[in-house]
C-alpha cells in the first residue's frame, strides 16, 4: 500500500520534520565513525592530517609479531562464526520447523528459550560457562571452535527472530499438507517446499549470527580465548591506530552484511507471498 494512498496517522511527522530528525540522528551516529576513521589515518602524535603509514605497518615484517594475535583472533572468530551458523542450521532450524509443522504446542517454549539469553547479562553467562569449559578444554585441549557452543547461545535470539518472522508470513502447514497430498515424503516436503520459502529468514539469521560472533567480547575474554574482539582489545594498547582501522573494517563488514539482508528482504518483498486471511473471505452465503 502506498504511503500517499493511506490515511495519515494523527501523530505522523511531516516530511520536513522527518528529514531534520533523520539528519540529526544520522550525524549523532556518523560523528563517532568519522572520528574513528580520522584517528585511524592520523599521523602519530598529531591531531590532524592523513597518512597510510599505519596500514603499511601491517605488512612490515619487523612489526608482524604485534599483529599475530589479532590475525589469529580473526581466524578463530571466522571459524567460530562458521560453527555457530552450522549449529543454528543443524539444531535450531529443524527444531523450529518441527515445532511449526508437528508439535505446535512447543513453539512458545522454543521462543522462550531462544529469547532468554537477552535477559541474562553476558557476564553472568560467561561466569556460568567457566566450569563447563574448563572440563571441555581439559578434554580437548584449548580449541577455539568449542567457543561456538557458548557464543551460539547468546546469538540464539538473533538467529531465532528472522526465521520466526519468515515462518509467520508463510502458511507452512498448508504448504506442507499440499506437498504431502501430492506425493512428497517428509524429506522432500522440507527440502523442496519448506526450506525455499524460509530462505530469507535463514539467510538473515545466519548473517546476524556472524555479526554477533564478530562483535562478541565478554565470553571470549572471560574464558581467556583469543578472538577478533579480544585481539583488538590487546592491540589497542600496542597500536591504537591499527586497532581503529580494524574496528572500522569490522563495522563496514557488518554494514555490508546488513545491506545484504536488506537486499534479500527486498527480493522477497517483490515476490510477495499472498496469504489467505479470513478478512479476504466473502460474506457467508444467504440461507
Amino acid at each position: 500500500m502506498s504511503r500517499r494512498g493511506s490515511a495519515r496517522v494523527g501523530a505522523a511527522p511531516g516530511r520536513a520534520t522527518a528529514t531534520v530528525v533523520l539528519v540529526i540522528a544520522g550525524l549523532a551516529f556518523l560523528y563517532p565513525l568519522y572520528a574513528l576513521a580520522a584517528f585511524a589515518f592520523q599521523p602519530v602524535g598529531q591531531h590532524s592530517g592523513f597518512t597510510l603509514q599505519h596500514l603499511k605497518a601491517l605488512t612490515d615484517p619487523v612489526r608482524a609479531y604485534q599483529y599475530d594475535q589479532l590475525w589469529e583472533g580473526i581466524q578463530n572468530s571466522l571459524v567460530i562464526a562458521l560453527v555457530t551458523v552450522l549449529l543454528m542450521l543443524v539444531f535450531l532450524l529443524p527444531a523450529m520447523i518441527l515445532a511449526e509443522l508437528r508439535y505446535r504446542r512447543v513453539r512458545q517454549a522454543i521462543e522462550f528459550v531462544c529469547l532468554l539469553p537477552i535477559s541474562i547479562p553476558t557476564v553472568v553467562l560467561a561466569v556460568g560457562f567457566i566450569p563447563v569449559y574448563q572440563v571441555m578444554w581439559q578434554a580437548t585441549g584449548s580449541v577455539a571452535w568449542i567457543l561456538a557452543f557458548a557464543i551460539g547461545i547468546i546469538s540464539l535470539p538473533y538467529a531465532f527472530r528472522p526465521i520466526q518472522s519468515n515462518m509467520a508470513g508463510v502458511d507452512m502447514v498448508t504448504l506442507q499438507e499440499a506437498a504431502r497430498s501430492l506425493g512428497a515424503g517428509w524429506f522432500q516436503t522440507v527440502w523442496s517446499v519448506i526450506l525455499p520459502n524460509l530462505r530469507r529468514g535463514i539467510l538473515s539469521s545466519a548473517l546476524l549470527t556472524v555479526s554477533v560472533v564478530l562483535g562478541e567480547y565478554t565470553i571470549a575474554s572471560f574464558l581467556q580465548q583469543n578472538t577478533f574482539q579480544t585481539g583488538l582489545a590487546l592491540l589497542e594498547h600496542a597500536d591504537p591506530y591499527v586497532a581503529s582501522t580494524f574496528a572500522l573494517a569490522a563495522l563496514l563488514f557488518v554494514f555490508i552484511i546488513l545491506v545484504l539482508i536488506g537486499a534479500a528482504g527486498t527480493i522477497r518483498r517483490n515476490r510477495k507471498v499472498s496469504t489467505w486471511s479470513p478478512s479476504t473471505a466473502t460474506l457467508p452465503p444467504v440461507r
Partner: protein
Amino acid sequence: MVAIDSNASAGSLTVTGTSVELVDVVKTYSGHAALSGLDLKVEPGEFVALLGPSGCGKTTALRALSGLEGIDSGSIRIGGVDVVDVPVNRRDIGMVFQSYSLFPHMTAQQNVEFGLRMRKVPAQQRRARASEALELVGLGHLSGRYAHELSGGQQQRVALARALVTRPRVLLLDEPLSALDAKVRVQLREEIRRLQQELGITTIFVTHDQEEALAVADRVAVMNAGDIEQIGTPEELYLAPRTPFVADFVGLSNKLGGTLVGGVVTVYGQPLNVLGEAPEDGPVTAYVRPEDVIITTDAGLPATVVSTSFLGSLRRTFVRLADDTVVAVQHDVSDRPEPGQQVALRFKGRPVAVTRQG
C-alpha cells in the same frame, strides 16, 4: 478472469472412478467427538458434497480420508482397499485447500509439475502433462506466473490443475471457493462440476454453503455433530428433509406451529400434508418454505408487511402475523408490497416437514 474453454479436452487426465467408503469412523479431539461413527459410501465417479455448519466434522472427515488426520477407529476404503495405515503421500488423492496453497517459490507450471516430479515422471512428459492440465483449467497462458501474480480464482484453478495432473483416484476439495468473491465462486464451482463430469473422477467437496453444495453435487451429505443427518440428491434434501436440522439448514424455512392429526398438519387453519413419516399426533413445528407461501389480496391469513428485499430474480418479503410470528415469503419481483401494507397469506399446500414440539 479467463473463462475455461469448454471445448478443452480432458484428454489424458480422464480417470476411471474409484469408490470411497468410510465405515463407522470415529475421531475425537481431547474428549470432543469430531466424527462419531461416520458412514459414507461414494460411488465411482460420483460427486458428493459434505455440507454442514462449522464444527460439524465435515473437514475432519475429508482430512481423515486424505490421511492428513488419523482416526481413532473405523475403516476408510479407497477402491475397496483399507487405507487407514497408508500415509497421505501414498493414498493417491488430489486435494485442493481452502487457503491458497500454491508453492510461492514456484511458477504455476512448476506447481503443477510438482506431483509428477515426486512420482519421478520424466521431465519432458512432466512438462507436457502439466501444460495440458493448465490448459484444462484455462490458464495455459499464465504458466510462467508465480502465485502472487495470480488472482485468488486463478490460484485455485492452478491448485485444481495441480491436484488433477497426477490422475488421482479421488479428488478432495476442502472449501476451495470460500476465499473467493461471489462471482468468481459461482463461475469456478460450475467449472469444477464440468471438469469432474468430464474426467469422471470421484470427488468429495466440503462446504458450509448449501447453495454451493446443491448446485454442484450428485448427492449431498448434510452433517451435524460428527455424523451424517441425511444424504441424498439436492432435490431430495430440499423437498423431503428427513430431520428438522436438515429442513432448517438446507434452504430457508418458516418454522410455524401447527397441530398434527393423522398425517395432516393444520397450520394457521390450513391443512398441509406431511413429508415422509409423520410423528405422533399433537402439537408440531412445520417447516414451510418461503416459496410455498403466497401473498394475496383475497381472503387469507391477515398479515402486515415488515420489509421486502430485491434478490435479483425474485423478491423476499417478511410479513408479521397477528400473533407476532414473522413469515418469509418468496415471490415474483414485479409484486412490490410496501412495508406497513395489510396483506393476506395463503400456503400453496405442498407437503411440509414437521417435528414434534417441546
